[in-house]
């Protein structure tokens, strides 16, 4: 039997998440409206700012701990949904406290000119880009450090045995996957910047989006050639599921648009809709498979 699968794993991910939340908080500045409300309540400005910087860190750690408690004993898929919901709540309150990454828009505007306020599709492009870049960084940690890296970002007591059994030979694939994810995230964000830019400043972000997209597609081909038959089946299952899901969602949107209750359905919406659906479908395909396989490994 595979010995590493029975190794006890610690949930170091909570600490890692706390450090990441603190770093994220350090990039932000207090949301003016919330800050004004706290000052109106009689808090000194410095204290109000300190609270608004500390609250998201506590909220994010709290969300992870609540997610762990609620997800205990549930399937991987259900646990994933619980974590996503806890993350959404923490994200909502974090946005209420802080404007994060405040230096980024200013840096982009300095390079490429002023950006228009993002619409729903552009917010989705930014969100998708941020999610896949974060995922890419996590995969990069595993690729670089192997099982200790997987343990460092694990949120649960029970680490997936697959993560503990990563062979050195497989780390290269993780590295390629990490670069591919970051490239697709950069492409998505560059597309949003192109849409938000003035007419004369569209070419630069478009070229970056095309270059990053090409890197992502090329690495997908290389990764596909390295997958074994089960992994390929999971990818194909995920794509098949996402095609069905996206067709249903698109149908609903077309109906909503005909009824004049949905905004125009443009190419950006198609790209980000498909990308997010594929991300979710891949998670569902692999999580549901891993859950079943793990359940069958349990002793009777």
């Amino acid at each position, binding site marked *: *039997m*595979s*010995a590493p699968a029975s190794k006890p794993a610690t949930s170091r991910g909570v600490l890692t998440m706390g450090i990441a939340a603190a770093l994220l908080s350090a990039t932000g500045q207090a949301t003016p409206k919330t800050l004004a409300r706290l000052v109106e309540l009689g808090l000194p400005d410095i204290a109000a700012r300190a609270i608004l910087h500390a609250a998201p860190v506590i909220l994010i750690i709290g969300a992870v701990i609540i997610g762990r408690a609620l997800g205990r004993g549930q399937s991987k898929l259900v646990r994933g949904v619980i974590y996503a919901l806890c993350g959404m709540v923490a994200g909502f309150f974090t946005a209420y406290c802080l404007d994060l990454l405040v230096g980024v828009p200013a840096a982009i505007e300095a390079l490429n000119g002023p950006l228009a306020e993002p619409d729903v599709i552009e917010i989705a492009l930014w969100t998708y880009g941020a999610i896949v870049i974060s995922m890419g960084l996590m995969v990069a940690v595993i690729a670089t450090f192997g099982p200790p890296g997987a343990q460092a970002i694990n949120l649960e007591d029970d680490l997936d*045995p*697959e993560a503990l*059994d990563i*062979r050195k*030979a*497989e780390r290269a694939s993780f590295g390629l996957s990490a670069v591919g994810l970051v490239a697709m995230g950069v492409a998505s964000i560059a597309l949003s910047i192109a849409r938000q830019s003035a007419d004369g400043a569209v070419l630069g972000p478009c070229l970056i989006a095309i270059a990053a997209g090409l890197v992502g597609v090329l690495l997908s081909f290389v990764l596909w050639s390295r997958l*074994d*038959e*089960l*992994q390929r*089946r999971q990818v194909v299952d995920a794509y098949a599921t996402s095609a069905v899901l996206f067709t249903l969602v698109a149908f609903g949107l077309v109906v909503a648009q005909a009824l004049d209750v949905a905004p125009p359905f443009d190419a950006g919406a198609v790209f980000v809709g498909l990308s997010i659906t594929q991300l979710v479908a891949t998670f569902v395909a692999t999580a549901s*498979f891993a859950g*079943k*396989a793990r359940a*069958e*490994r349990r002793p009777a």
Partner: protein
Amino acid sequence: MKNQLRVLRAQRSWSQADLAEKLNVSRQTINAIETGRYDPSLPLAFTIARLFGLTIEAIFSPEDPEAHD
């Protein structure tokens, strides 16, 4: 599909990772085959049979043998 993979592997004191390396697949795939979650392709089944020096039928058998009569 039932299979004798876990038994054959244990007889040789191979870990799932060892067998995965010999077959050039992931450990996840070995685990999935052993737990009956995944039926290997014919080429992989032949490779497995060759590795253990057995026929495919000696390793893999249908859950309901009568279904194949």
